């Protein structure tokens, strides 16, 4: 089956081959060492290959073999708790085989071939099954039941079904036409897995981050982008989402970013508990790490590898969150390869297909009815790293045309250590209205009112600040000075959230609600007092107002808050404001 060709030219990660007639996107093995690559252009009798490994020392004339397969991932039990490179090679296995530095020419299976899983069939002989149907289950981690599904393109009648311990490549089911099914299936990464129907997202992804849940929520199955200059908090925010979101599965892609950040996740996630299940976070997580110094072609592939794995769990009916940090590095890998191909460059050297690729990727998010009829979702959250922090560049702009939520990071805020440094004036969520019913039912009937009111005040603040810049705050009328004080409280007490504080790092929705309501209560009482003639200085020196600053850090939040609120009532009663 294997036909041999040879290398014609080598220029970095781009290799031209001759002598074989591959199909577009076929995976080929290049050179004596069999480096993995993918056909990305065919011209006459030559084909261009992007190679996923370093090509130093590779010579023209070395052999090339076509595998005839497109770039695929292995799907089955054992994905969770793994860390892969961009082409699904387990980094742990690579380390065992070649030490602490990644050498090339090593192949490693995405799924462990030795490990046995306890397969419990859910169909019997004679049942008819179609693509996506579940034929059995495996307990993959304590809380995740892995459904073994018929590959989307297969259907038939069950002739034989097994039960017991098997490896992922042993046959567990035979259909009457002789088709053998294993627990593992392969899927080409560049092709979305089919679903029966796409649904409108109706539930929020609760993240435990006040500014996100409170002001700019993303829906389960939605899309969000976090653009920001370096050091403004993209990675920390993404990691916070990976840690605390009420999601079943997390796929975290470190795409062209730092090795230490991935090491951090690897270190922390097994220790941290999923707030929903109490189990280590790692048990619901799949990591893809193709760091900035790893080959760019594999960086290009990493995003597809990640989203395909996400789709697979979605098909089982799980809510999956996918974080891609950073989609700009992904776009740059496309640019790098495109320029080696001497393609006609588009805006800022990016290939003309940049925007198509971005929308194809985000389009793979969504809430769906799977082929088997389960409801599952993929929420995609992409970091964007605009050069110079300038959002007018092509990757940010093209992304904003697609995603529904925009969390705009702001260097001015991060420099003063206002975290998360998400700008509350320029960010937006297009899900806010669609999710309003959910919030009213599940948080509190007055939540929307309190939230909108806070947003409104923040808007006013920015206008007042302009005046203050000209005349100083003392020149403002008293009610406006009060507004500035309340918005300061909203910013510092509510919006600011320290990801590294043991308590504050995660804030349940109920706590978010009570905190904002408390601030709003001070606002109401203070305004009433002011109207009934209480001097401004008295209102400002209400102690309970300052006490409110720190209740969010309390382990026992409710009692601490109640103490403050009682004191607030007493203090205002003394002022005679009500």
């Amino acid at each position, binding site marked *: 089956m294997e036909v041999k060709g040879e290398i014609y030219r*080598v220029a970095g990660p781009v290799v031209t081959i001759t002598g074989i007639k591959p199909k577009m996107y076929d995976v080929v093995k290049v050179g004596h060492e069999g480096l993995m690559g993918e056909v990305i252009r065919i011209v006459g009798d030559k084909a261009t290959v992007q190679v996923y490994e370093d090509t130093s020392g590779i010579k023209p004339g070395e052999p090339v073999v076509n595998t005839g397969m497109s770039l695929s991932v292995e799907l089955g039990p054992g994905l969770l708790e793994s860390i892969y490179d961009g082409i699904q090679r387990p980094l742990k296995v690579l380390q065992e085989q070649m030490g602490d530095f990644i050498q090339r020419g090593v192949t490693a299976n995405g799924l462990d071939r030795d490990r046995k899983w306890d397969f419990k069939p859910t169909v019997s002989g004679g049942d008819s099954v179609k693509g996506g149907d579940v034929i059995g289950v495996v307990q993959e981690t304590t809380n995740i039941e892995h459904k073994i599904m018929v590959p989307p393109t297969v259907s038939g009648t069950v002739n034989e079904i097994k039960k017991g311990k098997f490896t992922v490549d042993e046959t567990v089911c035979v259909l009457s036409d002789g088709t053998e099914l294993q627990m593992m299936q392969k899927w080409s990464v560049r092709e979305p897995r089919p679903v029966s129907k796409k649904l409108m997202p109706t539930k929020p992804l609760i993240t435990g981050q006040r500014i996100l849940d409170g002001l700019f929520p993303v829906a389960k199955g939605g899309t969000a982008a976090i653009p920001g200059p370096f050091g403004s908090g993209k990675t920390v925010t993404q990691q916070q989402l990976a840690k605390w979101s009420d999601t079943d599965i997390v796929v975290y892609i470190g795409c062209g970013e730092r090795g230490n950040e991935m090491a*951090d996740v690897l270190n922390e996630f097994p220790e941290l508990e999923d707030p929903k299940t109490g189990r280590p976070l790692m048990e619901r997580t799949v990591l893809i790490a193709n760091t900035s110094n790893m080959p760019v072609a594999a960086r290009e592939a990493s995003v597809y590898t990640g989203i395909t794995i996400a789709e697979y769990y979605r098909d089982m009916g799980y809510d999956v969150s996918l974080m891609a940090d950073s989609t700009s590095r992904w776009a740059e890998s496309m640019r790098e390869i495109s320029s080696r191909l001497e393609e006609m460059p588009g805006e800022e050297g990016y290939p003309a297909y940049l925007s198509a690729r971005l929308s194809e990727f985000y389009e793979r998010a969504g809430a769906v009815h799977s082929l088997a009829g389960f409801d599952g979702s993929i929420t995609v959250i992409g970091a964007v790293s605009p050069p110079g922090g300038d959002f007018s560049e092509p990757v940010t702009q093209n992304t904003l045309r697609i995603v529904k939520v925009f969390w705009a990071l702001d260097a001015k805020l991060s*420099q003063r*250590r206002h975290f998360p440094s998400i700008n509350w004036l320029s960010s937006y969520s297009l899900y806010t209205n669609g999710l309003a019913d959910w919030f009213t039912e599940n948080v509190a009937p007055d939540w929307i009112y309190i939230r909108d009111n806070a947003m409104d005040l923040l808007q006013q603040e920015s206008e007042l600040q302009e005046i203050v810049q000209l005349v100083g705050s003392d020149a403002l009328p008293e009610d406006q000075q009060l507004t500035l004080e309340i918005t300061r409280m909203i910013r510092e007490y509510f919006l600011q959230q320290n990801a590294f504080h043991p308590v504050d790092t995660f804030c349940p929705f109920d706590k978010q609600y009570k905190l904002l309501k408390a601030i709003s209560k001070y606002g109401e009482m203070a305004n009433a007092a002011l109207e009934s003639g209480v001097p401004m200085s008295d209102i400002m020196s209400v102690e309970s107002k300052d006490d409110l600053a720190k209740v969010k850090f309390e382990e026992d939040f409710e009692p601490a808050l109640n103490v403050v609120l009682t004191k607030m009532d007493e203090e205002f009663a003394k002022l005679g404001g009500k």
Partner: protein
Amino acid sequence: MTKEYKTITEVSGPLIFLEKTEPVGFGELVNINLPDGTTKRGQVLDTSAETVVVQVFEGTGGLNSESGVVFTGETIKLSVSKDMLGRILSGAGEPLDGGPRIVPDDRIDVNGASMNPYSRMPPEDFIQTGISTIDGTNTLVRGQKLPIFSGAGLPHNEIALQIARQAKVLGSDEPFAVVFAAMGITNEEAQYFMQDFEKTGALERAVVFLNLADDPAVERLITPRMALTAAEYLAYEHDMHVLVIMTDITNYCEALRQMGAAREEVPGRRGYPGYMYTDLASLYERAGVIKGKKGSVTQFSILTMPGDDITHPIPDLSGYITEGQIVVSRELHRKGIYPPINVLPSLSRLMNSGIGEGKTRDDHKAVSDQMYAMYAEGRDMRGLVAIVGKDALSERDQKILEFADLFEDRFVRQGRDENRHIVDDTLRIAWEILSELPETQLTRIDNKFIDVYHPAHKAKSE
């Protein structure tokens, strides 16, 4: 493989084009013998059955079609041995100090392989530099890459040297070494470093690579790779903690741009190659700590921002790769403050893992955040005061305005040889200036820390 080819068909900038060779490997090292008997070195950039493109490190001056080209069959390697310590080498790894060639213990490909993220140990050992604006608010840890972003004429060299002299992990005397890579700096600047190394005895524990301003720009592309290869060797084969100082990253990037232009590549932002991010990452990412290994590689590089512009592609792409940056400010320098580090745009991303209870002190993070918030606000007030006058400020705002001055004068400013202890000096000063603010303004600090460390409370409880 010792065959000499005289088939050069074109010489263009730093590139030569050859025809009709045996198959040549990508990235292979090339020797070029000139008619006058000298030899230059180069590297294969593009290789096909018909044409080979070679980039010449020492520049193509004096080269013609009579020159002979020999392909060595291997990629660029550095001869390493522990005897490198105390040696001064050229930017291409040849001895410059009149000493013997390094007797190699090993020969290592200078490009280095990427460290498997799975093998990395998150850096967490606090390095005390004795400088408050670093230790207190932008803490450096072992295995971090933390560059200085500076500008022409600012005292970044002094700061780097002060750090090289003072840096240590408290309570440890594990073997350490300095690897110094000069890229395109002037002879005078290089001398400044060398003299300080000699004076303090640091040279014995240093390996120096010098590519000076008048050395070929192309060589600059391998100098940092040589230096990092030496550093990795000392760290992972000889268990040393290595501090790598590379200066100036900007000169390196200029060389990269020059090469890109010579290759007629489509330029990216401001003429720098589109792959500059990836290229810089292949340097910066070579810092780190490996599980199970004793040594480490910490990078403290100097980068002068063209036009003091932090959004220029060189600092911008660097900032996206490194684990923070220390920003030197012209404004503070003009005010006569040394070290003129502006903490606001500065950042150490690994700070959180290097500080706190058992490392520095439990209140460290909160104190740092509080100072940032107040200093940032205080600086805004300065702008406001210039317009509306001090009297228009509320009492609270006036206090914050004063805090900004105190911060610069007491916390930022320190002596060139002043080696501050993190707890006894840096955090003490921090609390002293914070206690000038009304206590209700200390919203970033847990009450339990205020009770223990605030001078007013401390006095009471003692």
